[in-house]
């Protein structure tokens, strides 16, 4: 079932200063249309400045599109806020509060009881492994620890739609593997068949986790499909070659060693 549907989304940022007339900048998103389905991990892939973060922020309602619309389960996005989670690349934690306090604060804002929040923290900890940082102030945590706390905070209300901006940023290999397994679990039937849309730079990560890939270049969707479909469609041997051809218009040939 289609969970997220973006139709012809467009956005350009304006350049303005105190003494100069406001001037329109180049389009950050140019009539972007895409779909992300339930029980599926969709990866948004693109070079720097492709418009990935702007697109995800639009889904979260933090940027206003100039044109186009966003539907979640066929309805306007604002009707699904309670079932929606957004994790920004900056984590956005309160540095003077502990990890647990950060999670509990958002849980309480979602109207969850203390007992329910405790249960959710235990469940999320069993998948993400952040028990050792629960009593630590967020400002004293490493980037990886902060990312895990921020992820737990975003998921405390058990949302159905997850929009994650660079969730593997700053995570070590063990944490990345844990996160990968957790996202797989969430997308599975046992985990509730959630719709997960994430952005990343790591091609390896995409190959390992994504059911569907959307390649975004200069604000336009260049390719949609599975890793294999995109690789084959671009007549490439590896997904990296296909991505380089789509993103930079170049062909990176394989280096055969030996």
């Amino acid at each position, binding site marked *: 079932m289609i969970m997220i549907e973006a139709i012809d989304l467009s956005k350009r940022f304006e350049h303005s200063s105190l003494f100069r007339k406001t001037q329109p900048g180049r389009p950050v998103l140019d009539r972007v249309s895409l779909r992300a389905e339930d029980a599926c991990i969709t990866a948004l892939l693109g070079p720097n400045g492709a418009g990935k973060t702007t697109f995800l922020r639009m889904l979260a309602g933090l940027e206003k599109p100039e044109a186009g619309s966003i539907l979640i389960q066929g309805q306007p996005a604002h009707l699904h806020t309670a079932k929606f989670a957004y994790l920004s690349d900056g984590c956005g934690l309160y540095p*003077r509060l502990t990890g647990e306090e950060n999670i509990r604060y958002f849980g309480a804002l979602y109207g969850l009881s203390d007992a329910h929040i405790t249960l959710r923290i235990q469940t999320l900890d069993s998948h993400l492994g952040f028990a050792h940082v629960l009593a630590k102030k967020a400002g004293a945590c490493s980037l990886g620890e902060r990312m895990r706390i921020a992820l737990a905070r975003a998921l405390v209300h058990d949302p159905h739609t997850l929009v994650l901006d660079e969730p593997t940023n700053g995570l070590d290999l063990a944490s990345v593997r844990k996160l990968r397994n957790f996202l797989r679990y969430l997308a599975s039937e046992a985990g509730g068949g959630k719709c997960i849309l994430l952005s990343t730079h790591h091609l390896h990560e995409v190959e390992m986790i994504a059911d569907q890939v959307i390649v975004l270049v200069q604000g336009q969707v260049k390719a949609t499909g599975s890793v294999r479909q995109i690789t084959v469609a671009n007549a490439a041997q590896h997904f990296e070659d296909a991505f380089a051809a789509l993103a930079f218009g170049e062909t990176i040939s394989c280096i055969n060693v030996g």
Partner: protein
Amino acid sequence: MHQRWVIFKKEFKDSLRDRRGLLTVGLVTVLAGPLCLLFMANMLSEYEAKSERRVVVVHRLADSPSLQNYLQRESAQIVPAPPDYEAALREGRLLEPVVIVPPQFDQQWQRGEVATLTLLTNSQQARTQASVSRLKRWLLGYASMQSEWALMQQPTLLRMHELIQLEEQDQASDKAQTVKLFGMLPYFLVFAALYGVWSAALETTAGEREKGTLEALAVTLTSPVHLVIGKWLAVTTLGAILATLATLGFIPAQAWIASDTLKAMFNFGSDEAMICLCLILPLVGFFAALLLFLGAVAASTRQAQTNATLVMLLVAFVPMLFLTQGGQVSVWQTCLPVLAQHHGIIALLSGEPLSLKPILSLVGCHAILILFFITITSRVFATIRHH
């Protein structure tokens, strides 16, 4: 209600965790006022004590036995001036004015010639000024007496101005004198109200925008109105605690005022403190709402601080503008934030009766302004999320 309470608890806890900021704000708001009061009161006591001392420093007294007799009759303690008295007075080593007697002073005026006594002071040294008026009075008395004596000897020497005495009388009440002496008290309390909420209000709006937590909150179902009310309650509570401590701090501080006269004049007890709090606490709420708005519209903490500095300038200069004009106080001046507190506290220190009506109109006016700023800040927060 639940969301507002959750936000209030988190914001208040977060503000209390900022130990360094809290310590700085606490020191500035709670201790600065009472410490300055003590400093000024003790300086005034010293001034008062100095003016009561009857020391007269004279250069070349041997040339005027008549002046020596006069000063002794006034029970003055005569001290010869040091050889470098000019430099000593200039450099602040000598804190008493010096009377300079010209050579053969007595013979000069006895012959009917104009003889001039010079009173050497240093107006840059405030401490030398304490004895000047008393000494001037003595010297005028001496000149007048000697003139009368000379008149009896030679009637043609009469000079009218030497027989004229100028008497100065201060019509101000003791309480008005208190206002003159302790007029800085409203400033301290108004600034305590401002500083108490400053950091917390900007941190919870512009600071959160920079950290990205405001956007994380916007994605939740939290209503912008609840968010602003929760934040305002937390900031106001913190500011109210600090402003209360700052106000109550004046009560124990007066025990250390050295002069009994000044202590009796100040007379800031629990009743005065309660009335002061009735005037100051609405201002704390107003400043909290205003700074939340300024923090919410700013793109960064630095911009928010720049905006808030304008508030500080207004708080410092507007009272000066209106209070120096004197005359009748308009009704609007007793309602508007800052001006109302200045007028109220000055009236309180002057011993004027302060009825319930002006306090209620002050609270009402502040409540309207608080509601206004909470509403527009909620609208600013509502624009963070577009759908």
